[in-house]
């Protein structure tokens, strides 16, 4: 069997992924390119005696390495040398798409063009003569409609045909004067004997790209500079990259004029009409909030009952497994499974419905075309914090759960901006912190003020995230200039198939990554919460709760809590609070259950609620300090793992961990001291 390596490439929003998904079906593998958070999708199609290995490159506009996506694609083509590129082109927008095609040809890779969405183009009155087009540009061209699987058979046949009978990659005919400069630089590059694809590299120099200069000696670099200076003076321009750009567009214009016909004037499309409303200064914000509200309703109103169902399944499982042992059994294995792993891992897995609904909603936003509108609408506000409109969606998701929010930050192209967003997401209060706020607020705050305080907490968190982002962008994460440049694709109805596929591909990561870390942490916490065991004499004189109290004080966790007690004193806490905060590193809501265990000894008889018990021990300023500490302190282990994975380094999660705890501690202590003065 022969293997053919084919890259599927093209601009964003040309139906490239649809083509890839429908060609490969479920035979795909999604991973990441090393070092960057760009998804790498591979799939295999078997036909006759051939195995066609398809690689779905990210959607890009050029090979100039503006974004990680472009960098990845360039590297792939240079280093992995695919046998062929299937260049997916939107038939209604051919003049725009050809720019990338020309760059592929400059790299001397065989290209097969798939003219996609010809049905839509024809409805718009655009007719393309693919034979003429093929002749003009010098590469094979096929028509099709990826959504309807039209043209697939011909496409695959052609791939095999080209593999068996390789085609010549045509030279792009630039103007004579340009060719002169290109060949002069090519000469120098050739002499240096360091490169392949000489002409492409020569053109890169004329585009202003300096990537190759570091491989050349000073003398050669000076020669090239002199050539560029000559070009600048003969053409009398300062921004010389425009010359090659202009030549490309000139060429494209000629090709399009000869092969395309447009027999209808352009009409305002439905997309244009929708944008009039969605982007108008009056409706944009209300519509945006309505959309976000709907997503929250879906994620939490539909998600929560489902997640409770998951939770009760884990309860059932714990009981079921506990049933294998005799009642009151002290078996460690039983305790590890029933008290450790199932509540710990189950506690996180219970959020699976919310997470998947969240990813589903993001997929809908992306596939429908609204996502890029959000970036536009919110840009003017976010630029004040040193971020751009693209940070909005990840940050909003942070209200639900930091893990998918951190993952969603992938949509931000600029590295610095993405890092800043990831670093501040945990300031935004996630759903898991809600039970803690509710416990403390309902115990310490009068009923009429409860709602306002809760709102205040959420606003404070969001506000803090923007301030910290601003600070980071001014200091550690300055980065380069990064204006918003974003294409607004036509609105489209997403297909269920693509939504499900996208959701699964991303959700799977949550299950894998968060799941493994949580499992490990759960086991460690269980060990700390269980050992060393205490031998209590005269057990019969004590209630079950009292025994539990003595036991828990003696465990590693209890002892650490005691050690940490002085640290939490200045905010009105004691070792129990220290312990609960420590335990909440596993998952925020564990704070409540840990407090519950530690306070369970206080007289079971009068059946007081946890809140009432807390009120007897802690003051109001202390409660406020606890809330603030919970709001600002470092996120849970799963988020830590997600930040580690997404930034591909230990540095950022550790900075986040330390930085947030310092901020939280400062604020909590300050709040406690100040409030104590007045109350």
């Amino acid at each position, binding site marked *: 069997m022969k293997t053919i390596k084919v890259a599927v490439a093209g601009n964003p929003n040309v139906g490239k992924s649809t083509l890839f998904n429908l060609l490969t079906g479920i035979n795909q593998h999604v991973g990441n390119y090393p070092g960057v958070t760009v998804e790498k999708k591979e799939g295999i199609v078997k036909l006759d005696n051939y195995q066609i290995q398809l690689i779905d490159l990210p959607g890009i506009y*050029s090979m100039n390495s503006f974004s990680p996506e472009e960098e990845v694609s360039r590297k792939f083509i240079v280093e992995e040398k695919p046998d062929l590129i299937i260049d997916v082109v939107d038939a209604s927008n051919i003049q725009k798409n050809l720019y990338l095609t020309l760059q592929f040809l400059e790299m001397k890779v065989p290209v097969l063009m798939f003219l996609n969405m010809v049905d839509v183009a024809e409805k718009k009155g655009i007719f393309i003569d693919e034979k003429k087009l093929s002749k003009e540009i010098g590469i094979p061209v096929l028509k099709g409609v990826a959504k309807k699987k039209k043209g697939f058979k011909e496409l695959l046949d052609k791939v095999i045909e080209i593999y068996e009978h390789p085609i010549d990659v045509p030279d792009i005919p630039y103007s004579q004067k340009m060719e002169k400069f290109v060949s002069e630089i090519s000469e120098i590059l050739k002499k240096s004997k360091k490169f392949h694809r000489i002409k492409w590299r020569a053109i890169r120099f004329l585009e202003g790209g300096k990537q190759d200069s570091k491989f050349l000696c000073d003398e050669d670099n000076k020669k090239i500079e002199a050539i560029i200076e000559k070009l600048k003076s003969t053409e009398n321009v300062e921004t010389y990259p425009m010359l090659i750009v202009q030549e490309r567009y000139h060429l494209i214009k000629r090709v399009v004029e000869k092969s395309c016909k447009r027999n209808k004037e352009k009409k305002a499309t439905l997309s244009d009409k929708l944008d009039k409303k969605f982007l108008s200064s009056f409706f944009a914000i209300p519509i945006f909030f309505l959309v976000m509200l709907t997503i929250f309703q879906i994620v939490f109103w539909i998600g929560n009952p489902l997640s409770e169902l998951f939770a009760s399944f884990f309860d059932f499982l714990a009981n079921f497994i506990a049933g294998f042992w005799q009642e009151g059994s002290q078996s460690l294995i039983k305790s590890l499974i029933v008290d450790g792993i199932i509540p710990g891992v189950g506690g996180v897995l219970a959020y699976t419905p919310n997470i998947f609904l969240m990813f589903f909603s993001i997929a809908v936003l992306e596939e429908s075309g609204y996502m890029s509108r959000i970036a536009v609408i919110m840009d003017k506000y976010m630029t004040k914090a040193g971020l*751009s409109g693209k940070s909005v969606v990840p940050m909003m998701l942070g209200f639900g759960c930091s893990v998918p929010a951190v993952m969603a930050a992938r949509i931000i192209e600029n590295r610095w901006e993405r890092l800043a967003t990831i670093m501040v997401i945990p300031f935004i209060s996630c759903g898991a912190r809600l039970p803690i706020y509710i416990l403390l607020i309902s115990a310490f705050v009068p009923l009429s003020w409860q709602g306002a305080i809760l709102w205040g907490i959420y606003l404070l968190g969001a506000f803090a995230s923007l301030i910290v982002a601003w600070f980071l962008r001014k200091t550690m994460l300055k980065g380069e200039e990064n204006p918003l440049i974003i294409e607004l694709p036509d609105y489209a109805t997403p297909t269920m198939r693509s939504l499900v596929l996208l959701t699964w591909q991303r959700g799977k990561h949550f299950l894998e990554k968060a799941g493994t870390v949580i499992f490990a942490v759960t086991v460690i916490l269980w060990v700390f919460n269980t050992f060393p065991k205490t031998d209590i004499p005269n057990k019969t004189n004590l209630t079950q709760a009292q025994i539990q109290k003595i036991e828990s004080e003696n465990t590693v966790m209890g002892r650490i809590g005691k050690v940490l007690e002085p640290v939490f004193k200045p905010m009105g806490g004691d070792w129990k609070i220290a312990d609960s905060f420590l335990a909440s590193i596993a998952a925020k809501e564990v704070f409540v259950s840990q407090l519950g265990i530690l306070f369970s000894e206080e007289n079971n008889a009068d059946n007081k609620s946890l809140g009432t018990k807390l009120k007897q021990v802690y003051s109001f300023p202390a409660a406020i300090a606890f809330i603030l500490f919970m709001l600002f302190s470092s996120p849970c282990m799963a988020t830590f793992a997600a930040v580690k994975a997404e930034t591909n380094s230990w540095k950022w999660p550790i900075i986040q961990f330390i930085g947030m705890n310092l901020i939280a501690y400062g604020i909590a202590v300050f709040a406690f001291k100040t409030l104590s003065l007045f109350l």
Partner: protein
Amino acid sequence: MFLSELKIGQTATIKAMNACVTIYNRLASMGISENSKITVIQNSGRGPVIIESDGRKIALGRGMSMKINVEVV
């Protein structure tokens, strides 16, 4: 005049773009370069300017739009 000063519905030709090489090439690859014709779809005086060029809609940050010289046709 600058792109940022155009009103909704106005069509203009780009004369010069004052951007670093990376941003310049990015814009160029999306079809925004010298001599391309653009029509303003949205410009509220604050926030991004939305333009259309050859059937493709693109939003440009305000700061960027103040660095693009245009001539109204």
